[in-house]
C-alpha cells in the first residue's frame, strides 16, 4: 500500500509539473473549440447541433497530448528499470500511471468540456451531463492512452505513433459520449449511451494494464 502511495505521488507530481500539465491540455482544447466557428462560420444554427460532437472531438485530441510522457521518458532515462524492480508488478504500475494521468488531465478536461460545449451553443441544462460523461470518458482515454503509449515504446519520436495507435481506440467512447449528449439535447434518455460508455471504460481498465505491461516488458528486453 505504501508503494502504491509513493508511486502515485510521483506520477501525480510529474503529470502536474514539467510541461504537459492540465493547463496545457485545457488550453489546447479551448483553442480547438475556438477554431471550429472560424472554420465553419459563426451561425448558431450550424454550430449548435454539432456542439456535443465537436466538444468530444476536442476532448479526445486534448487527451492525447501528454501520453508520450507516460512511459517514453521513463524508458529513455532508465527510470523504468527500477520501476520494474520495485515491489509492485508492472500491471499495477501501468494502472497507477493511468489513474494519475486521469486525475491530472482527464478531470481538468472534464471541467473544461462544458465550457467548450456551451460556447458552441449546447443548451445550458446539459452542463452537468457533459462534465459527467467527459469524466467517465476521460478515464477510458487515460487507460487506452496508456496502452497506446506502452505499445509505441522504443519507437524514436513515438508521439505521432501514439496518436495513430490510440485514436482508433478513442472512437467508441467518442461515439457513446457524444451520443449521450445529442440524445439528451433532443429530449431523449441518455442513460443507455452512458451505460455503454461506462462498459467500454471498464473494459479498458481491465485490458490496458495487462497488455501495457506486456508491451513494456518487450520494450525493456
Amino acid at each position, binding site marked *: 500500500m505504501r508503494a502504491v502511495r509513493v*508511486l502515485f505521488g510521483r506520477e501525480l*507530481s510529474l503529470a502536474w*509539473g514539467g510541461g504537459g500539465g492540465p493547463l496545457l491540455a485545457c488550453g489546447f482544447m479551448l483553442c480547438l473549440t475556438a477554431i471550429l466557428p472560424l472554420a465553419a462560420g459563426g451561425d448558431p444554427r450550424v454550430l449548435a447541433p454539432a456542439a456535443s460532437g465537436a466538444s468530444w472531438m476536442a476532448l479526445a485530441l486534448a487527451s492525447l497530448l501528454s501520453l508520450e510522457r507516460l512511459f517514453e521518458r521513463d524508458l529513455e*532515462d*532508465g527510470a523504468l*528499470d527500477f520501476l520494474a*524492480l*520495485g*515491489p509492485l508488478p508492472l500491471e499495477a504500475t501501468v494502472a497507477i500511471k493511468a489513474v494519475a494521468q486521469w486525475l491530472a488531465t482527464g478531470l481538468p478536461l472534464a471541467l473544461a468540456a462544458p465550457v467548450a460545449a456551451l460556447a458552441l451553443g449546447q443548451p445550458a441544462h446539459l452542463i452537468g451531463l457533459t462534465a459527467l460523461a467527459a469524466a467517465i470518458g476521460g478515464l477510458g482515454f487515460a487507460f487506452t492512452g496508456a496502452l497506446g503509449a506502452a505499445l509505441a515504446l522504443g519507437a524514436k519520436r513515438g508521439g505521432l505513433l501514439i496518436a495513430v495507435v490510440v485514436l482508433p481506440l478513442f472512437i467508441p467512447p467518442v461515439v457513446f459520449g457524444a451520443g449521450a449528449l445529442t440524445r439528451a439535447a433532443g429530449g431523449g434518455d441518455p442513460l443507455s449511451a452512458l451505460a455503454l460508455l461506462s462498459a467500454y471504460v471498464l473494459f479498458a481498465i481491465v485490458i490496458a494494464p495487462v497488455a501495457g505491461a506486456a508491451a513494456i516488458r518487450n520494450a525493456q528486453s
Partner: protein
Amino acid sequence: MLKAVEIRNLSLSRGERVLFQGLSLRLSAGEVVALTGANGAGKTSLLRAVAGFIRPDAGAITFSGGPGADGESLDAETAQRESVHLLGHLEGLKPTRTARQEFDFQTAWLGGNTVAREVAIARLSLSPLLDLETRKLSAGQKRRLSLARLIAAPRALWLLDEPLAPLDERWRAVAAELMEAHLATGGMILAAVHDPLPVPARNLDLGGLS
C-alpha cells in the same frame, strides 16, 4: 534474505547475434565477480538478464536464500523485486525534479528505511546537492545519488554496470568502502567493468565479439 545466485549454461543473444553460450557462474554471500570483455561482449546484457529484463535463449538463473546455511530456492521474480539493485549507465533521474524528490522516491519505492537513508546521505555527502534540480548535477554527482540509493534501500545483490566510471579519486575510494561494507554484511556484487574493481574480485571474462 538472498544468499546465492546460480547461473547455469546460460545463452544470450541480441537480435540475430549470439553473445555467449553455456555460461555458468555461482555467486554466494560476500562474493564479488567482475565481468570483463570487449565492448559488445554482453556484460550489460548479462546484468539485465539477472535482473529479469532479458529472457535467456537457454539455461537458467536461480536464486536461493532464506533460513539455513544455503537456504532454499526462491521465486525468481520475488527475489528480483526484493533483493536486486541494478545500477546501469542511466541514472533514471527526471531533470526538473529536485535530487531530494528523486532520492526520496527511489528509496521509498525500493523499500528503504529512514535510518539507512540518513547513513546514505552522510556517506555520500549529499546534503548540499539535495535541493538542486537533477539537471544541474554533474555526471559524478548523479552517480553519487545512485550509489546512495543502494545504501538507503538495502538489498543483497548489486548489479553494477561501470559503477565507478564517472567518479573522481575521492569518491572511488568511498565507493570501495561502501562495497566492502556491503560484502561484510553478506551482500553480493556482480559488476561489469573495464578498470579493475577496488575490492578483491573473481574475474569472469566474456571475451570479445563472438
